[in-house]
């Protein structure tokens, strides 16, 4: 479908966002000698091997012991280190929520929690590993910054940028090969939404892998004579409320699109902003209070209502409610 569409952003290559993390991690390690790494037996999956090879003294394999990893990371900040922890999103959040809450967030520690294999697109491993609640848990924690980049280039840029930000960060990325459609060597500004496409009838706020689905959805809507604005919300918290209000006050309605539970996700943060400052129709594209299952990433996005076609449907519904 997307090949014949006139999308405003295009790609020639697909790559996994976790590789953007791995390459960014190596680069930031070269730039900043205080950056250190910890991994819970998933160095290959997290693409942390190149950093480990180049800086073995600054890298700690902690084994399958995530709680200890989070505590060690918190301790490493005392003395000025900038620890990046690596494991799957599931084990980076739910499994260690209390460690993050007390030793990292409440204590204001400069730990970068780097979480791969988030969401349904993890694929065949199924629901035990497909966490869809992680952004919700992390955004509820005071002091925590939550970032969910959309492709290889943006993930790499975010990985580098977070080293210069003082405070705990949750950086979420994924496993599947995905279109690379944002600029190489882009500047990543934490908390600043990126208006990718101007429009006037409806705003699509998308994050993570679903930004690409939203690019496709915009093209479909345009063919049907609907002008959609696309805003890439790479930072879930702090949320760029100004960008949201500016856009919705122009378009009058919106759609949120995320590879996450609807409960507690990006859409809920947008709803809170709109409800208190500019009430307007909002339609959610996300997982509706269910766990995932095994399958191929694109099959899962279709089955759970998270692809471009569902964004198009939601946009039309939002417009009809104006």
């Amino acid at each position, binding site marked *: 479908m997307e090949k014949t569409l006139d999308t405003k952003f295009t790609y020639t290559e697909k790559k996994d966002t976790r590789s953007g993390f791995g390459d960014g991690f190596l680069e930031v390690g070269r730039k900043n000698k205080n950056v250190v790494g910890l991994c819970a037996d998933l160095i290959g999956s997290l693409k942390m091997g190149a950093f480990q090879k180049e800086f073995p003294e600054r890298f700690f394999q902690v084994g399958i012991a995530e709680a200890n990893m989070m505590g*060690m990371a*918190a301790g*490493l900040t005392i*003395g*000025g280190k900038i620890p990046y922890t690596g494991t799957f999103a599931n084990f980076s959040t739910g499994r260690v929520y209390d460690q993050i809450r007390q030793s990292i967030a409440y204590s204001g520690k400069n730990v970068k929690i780097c979480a791969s294999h988030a969401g349904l697109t993890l694929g065949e491993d199924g629901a035990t590993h497909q966490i869809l609640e992680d952004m919700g848990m992390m955004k509820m924690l005071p002091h925590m910054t939550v970032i969910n980049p959309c492709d290889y280039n943006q993930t790499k840029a975010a990985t580098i940028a977070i080293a210069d930000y003082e405070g705990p960060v949750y950086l979420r990325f994924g496993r599947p090969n995905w279109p690379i459609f944002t600029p190489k060597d882009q500047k990543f500004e934490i908390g600043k939404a990126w208006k990718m496409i101007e429009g006037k009838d409806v705003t699509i706020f998308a994050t993570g892998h679903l930004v690409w689905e939203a690019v496709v959805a915009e093209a479909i809507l345009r063919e049907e004579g609907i002008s959609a604005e696309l805003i890439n919300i790479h930072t879930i918290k702090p949320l760029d409320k100004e960008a949201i209000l500016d856009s919705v006050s122009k378009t009058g309605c919106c759609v949120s699109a995320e590879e996450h539970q609807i409960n507690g996700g990006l859409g809920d943060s947008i709803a809170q902003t709109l409800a208190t400052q500019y009430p307007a129709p909002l339609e959610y594209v996300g997982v509706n209070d269910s766990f995932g299952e095994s399958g191929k990433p694109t099959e899962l996005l279709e089955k759970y209502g998270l692809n471009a076609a569902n964004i198009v449907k939601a946009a039309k519904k939002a417009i009809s409610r104006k």
Partner: protein
Amino acid sequence: MEKLSTDQLKNVCSQVRRDIVRMVHGCQSGHPGASLGCTEFFVTLYFHQMKHNKDFNLDGIGEDLFFLSNGHISPVWYSVLSRSGYFDSKELYTFRKIDSRLQGHPATEENLPGVRIASGSLGQGLSVAIGAALAKKLNNDDRTVYVLMGDGEQQEGQIWEAAMSAPHHKVDNLIASIDVNGQQIDGPTKEVMDLRDLKSKWEAFGWEVIVTENGNDIHQVIAALDKAKGLLGNGKPVLNLLHTDMGYGVDFMVGTHKWHGIAPNDEQLEKALSQLEETLGDY
């Protein structure tokens, strides 16, 4: 800080114990039992053992660091921090009260000097201490990291993740102590969840283990910490099994879990204070 003689240390202990019972009485909550039991340990650390700077710097470069994993015994820590100059002892009056820097469990949110990380949810402090010790190594900082845990806390799984990791990473600038008082909230540890042979367990995990038979004897505490220090730098972390009596120093609080987490009433306070000499002036 100048090292105190054992007589001077004993005087500090007496005042710290007065502080503990008065703080807990003042807000009618908190944990006097193990605070009293660990008084000799804290006083020895801060007035004799550690190189530390009362002008608090969170990173503590060039200083020995202490972490309290069993954060509920905050009264003894707060008292010792104030008595060693981190903040005015008058502030002990605010313990557990609204707008205080002296939270029920230690925290960094209010910037209380001397506290480097929050604790209270058990099992997390050893991991933090290991991280801080690794940071010291990366910084070529040859000072030591200390951490205290409770014995009941040994029931937490994270302790054993950390126990496994420190020898693996050759964290030999770390002295961990366990307050072995045999009591926890619901009763004796033997009945709640038997810890069995802690010495063998920690040795099996690759630690150098020493035993302080009587952690309420200041001479023994000093000797044990000196011995622990002598074992550092050999590729292994050191564990000190610090046997104490919960509630030590107040006759009706000794040796029972009943004073783990309750406060004395007015009459009990007077009775406790009558057994503890005021040596440095009450706050």
